[in-house]
């Protein structure tokens, strides 16, 4: 079943992507084809099957509670475009 323009627009918003009007139809078309393709999965019988989250059946290792990371703010913040007084800046948010 093909996706609608609204659905695709909603997905794009959730993913913080901006779709140009000109490309919207093409995106709807391609995504619909992909969803159609993966719909093949519905045919599989999976009633008593557990979902796999990891290929190997391992459990989480625990780390000791120690401070191991020093302050490297200045070096790291060289990568940011907008920084002031050590803060990362974004357009003003009103809560």
């Amino acid at each position, binding site marked *: 079943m093909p996706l609608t323009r609204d*659905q695709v627009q909603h997905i794009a918003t959730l993913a*913080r992507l901006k779709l140009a009007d000109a490309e919207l139809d093409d995106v709807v078309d391609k995504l619909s084809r992909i969803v159609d393709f993966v719909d*093949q999965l519905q045919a599989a019988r999976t009633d008593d099957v557990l979902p796999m989250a990891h290929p190997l059946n391992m459990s989480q*290792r625990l780390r000791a509670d120690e401070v191991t990371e020093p302050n490297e703010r200045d070096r790291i913040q060289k990568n940011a475009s907008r920084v002031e007084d050590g803060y*990362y800046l974004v*357009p003003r948010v009103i809560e």
Partner: protein
Amino acid sequence: MVQGTDALYTWSLTDLARGLKDGEFSSRELTESLLRRIDDHQQRLNAFITVTADAALQRADAADKARANGDESLLNGLPIVYKDLFCTKGVLTTCGSRILGNFVSPYDATVVERISAAGAVMLGKTNMDEFAMGSSNETSYYGPVTNPWNKKLSPGGSSGGSAAAVAARIVPAATGTDTGGSIRQPAALTGTVGLKPTYGRVSRFGMVAFASSLDQAGVITRSAEDAALLLGVMAGYDKKDSTSVDHPVPDYVAGLSKPVKGLKIGIVRQHFDEGLAAGCEERVKAALAVLKEEGATLIEVDLPNIDLSVPTYYVVAPAECSSNLSRFDGVRFGHRADNPENLLDLYCRTRSEGFGAEVQRRIMTGTYVLSAGYYDAYYLKAQKVRQLISQDFKKAFENVDVIAGPTAPTTAFAIGEKIDDPITMYLNDIYTIGANLAGLPGISVPCGFADGLPVGLQLVGPHFAEETILACAHQYQQLTDWHAQGPEEFS
């Protein structure tokens, strides 16, 4: 000037190691020679995004000095290039994307640390499909890579740059990453060896995440022996990666001599259908015959759910990547949209400007399959089918030691031929994806030519059976010389 340094580019990593040790040439000479070669062919291949010439020469000099002082590090002075998905400290790391076009990584990936600690000299970062999403190296922001065998053809992807550089005899070895076949498929299409280890065998720390439960670091070389050498350096537990396995690392090189006689090789019924090009089928069958001749037993195995592996992958991988790529928002690093009107505009424009079409498509697919109302039908379902596929492999491995078959359904295809239809492109990974879903190790080795283009034979083993598949590949390479044949243009 040592005679013959110009031909060093044809040598294997193993032979170069011996040559350096025996003093036949210096690391400096070797490095200079390869840097020249990179330069000579960059326009033709576009295999590199960054070349680190100055640093490489410094490293080479340091390696020569160290060797003179008795340093016997395994890769001392040997050249290496990293797929641009690996974080390299102080060096541009783009992941083939515009969104990281200005990103100089502040740290080294564990893989980079280990290879570096073993003495290797980094020559540069190779081109790749954007964020490893692609099977043709056409989605890179930095332009497509061309196949050394024919410049109109794709080298495969996403590790296209690494495969092209090795196939064109520019470097003997390159690292790659494999999530759905991104090492093995380009290896097959370029006539090189591509190894994807067991999930958790090699650390993912510093390897920019695409699909976390599928990604694995590996190598592209021209021989199984070289792959074994590098794997030994890369593999092993890393406490910085929770999915890294604490499993002992054997001497992969020593294990290569294990004979093929008595090896039980599984042939998957479902693999040899109309989706496989005739020329490829012929070459693969011939390769199997060679192994049989050498004493292996061929046994038919059934992987009943294997046909669902591509749809399964295209639910799981996009889901994970849609989340992994949320961190790219222009705030702390990377591309940032100019003059955003508000926060929403900052996010949307940064990401739409920074990500290419395929990446955006996968993010949206992933967002969709995780979204309210669809999670059960898609993501949860896919993870269950994944369990079924894993169980199929497990069952098959009760009767065989390795599963062998074609790596890719066709030989190299034309650039531009498949890029417009996502599904057609996705089907390139039809034989490789299963190993990623089940976390199994896989290797592709050259097994001949169809219409003048390379064909790859894939060997897949059970978890941590790298020794088995490497040995089989190595023995095959003792009996054939496909892997030694390179493209005329680059000889």
